[in-house]
């Protein structure tokens, strides 16, 4: 049973539907902060802030690797084979990138205020 791209997006939409208001609020706030940071710091300055939040992404990635299975009610003992380990790795990378993107705009803006 294949899923079309449209179908995969429809499933993802249903998955996040209960959290949609929260997600939208975070995205809007982050976008506003990012625009303010870009206005104050320019592109180079805003991108430089990305370097500063890199450790946050790394920490979340590590936490994802360590506690990912636990978050799903499972343990590392339940991971069987390359598929499961690659999925855990991919999920942890995803969480890390997500954390990075959420934290980056406020840090970039704070940087400009402190400068």
């Amino acid at each position, binding site marked *: *049973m*294949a*899923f*079309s791209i*449209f*179908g995969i997006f*429809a*499933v*993802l*939409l*249903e*998955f996040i*539907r209960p959290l949609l208001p929260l997600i939208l609020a975070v995205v809007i706030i982050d976008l506003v902060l990012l625009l303010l940071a870009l206005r104050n710091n320019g592109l180079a300055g805003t991108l430089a802030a990305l370097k500063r939040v890199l450790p946050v992404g790394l920490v979340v990635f590590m936490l994802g690797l360590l506690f990912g*299975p636990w978050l*799903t*009610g*499972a*343990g590392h*003992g*339940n*991971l*069987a*084979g390359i*598929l*499961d380990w690659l*999925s*855990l790795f991919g999920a942890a990378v995803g969480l890390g990138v997500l954390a990075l993107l959420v934290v980056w705009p406020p840090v970039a803006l704070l940087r400009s205020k402190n400068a």
Partner: protein
Amino acid sequence: MKRRNDRQAFLAESTVDPGRRRLLKAAGLGIGSLGLAGTGLMTSTPARAVKTNARIVIVGAGAAGLAAANRLSSRLDGARITLIDRRERHLYQPGLTLVATGLWKPGQTIDENKRYVPRNVEWIHASVSEFEPDANQVVTDTGQRVDYDYLVVTTGLHVDFDAIEGMSPELIGREGIGCVYDNPEHANRTWEMIDRYTTEGGVGLFTRGPGGIKCAGAPLKVAMLTEDLAQRHGNRDRLEMIYNSPSAGLFSQPDMDQFLKEEFPRRDIDINWHHRLVGIEPEQHRATFDTPEGEVRLDYDFIHVVPPMRAPDALGNSPLAWQEGGFADDGNWMEVDRHSMQHPRYPNVFGAGDCVGTPIGKTAASVKAQVPVVVDNLVSVMAGRQLTASYDGYTSCPLITSRGQAILVEFDYNLDMVPSFPFISPYREHWVPWIMKDKFLKAAYNAMLRGRV
């Protein structure tokens, strides 16, 4: 080869009876534009809706009924679509196994039908008590006669607790009795029974109704998750677990059957073959099984009751049911062509979901595969075209073997494995299918209800 023959037989059979087609046209169903060419089953709604003023009645607003209502309402322009079901509450039934084993809260399986009923669909809050396909009518239990030009039957099935002497749904959660096949409240009470059993120990009997039942994997999952829980509680040696199969097998797909026949003994779950539960004495904690050697009585501390299942009476006693043969004897299931999902004697009637008599496929996964076929073929009948969409028997079961692991089993009428994701082995326990079952299948189910997958 067999598959090709099946397909050829289907194409030969599925041409609409011209007399009936004339009748439908005479009923004023002028179809305007067609615009159906190239409609792939897995793709979303075609760009152009088909103009029609046909009256379409869908009986049953469960998984199949809601998916059909959404797909039809976006495929058709001007159709008068009526959905009939008294039930307001929508249950995500695949979650009941997780509730009964303490992994989910009951609320996670409860939703509302109104969230999924399309705006242009009329919803009659009643039950159909009579199907009169010769008059193109259904009659509700409130006495309302509803005319249709096309009928889609999606009533689900009836769990026949009365077929087990001494059993009733009210007993679930008392006297060591559990059952996942009722509702979230009873699934939660089943969890209380399983929790107590895996703490205190004793004899546990796990049963399975004979013939076609919905999600035939659920009784197996309950047995394996109970065993897993006892291991986690450190009490496994206090439990004697016995799985009672009404036949000589555990699962219809042969590879999975073989796997389970090795897995159960490995986990010290005994198997009684040809043991069909026919009676229960709740106070005595005793169950009666029909076996080839006669009736056998077994005492228990916990029993998972899985009754036989059949079509709801209104459907099973109607001309729409199989009139003879295995599907009539098994559960008075609705007669459909197993590929086109069209009724062979009433070409303006289609069926989908648990109510139909097909060799396999009483799962939500089957509904996902069947409903697009029903909608495509129904639109073809309206347009006077040959039916081209075909259901291959696809069904799926994320067979949870323990908390944190499952096997994603997907197969078709030929009992061949047909994995959706080639990188997930259908023969091996993995963590990924567990996450799918625990976290993503409900989202996929909801997307299906909205007609999007």
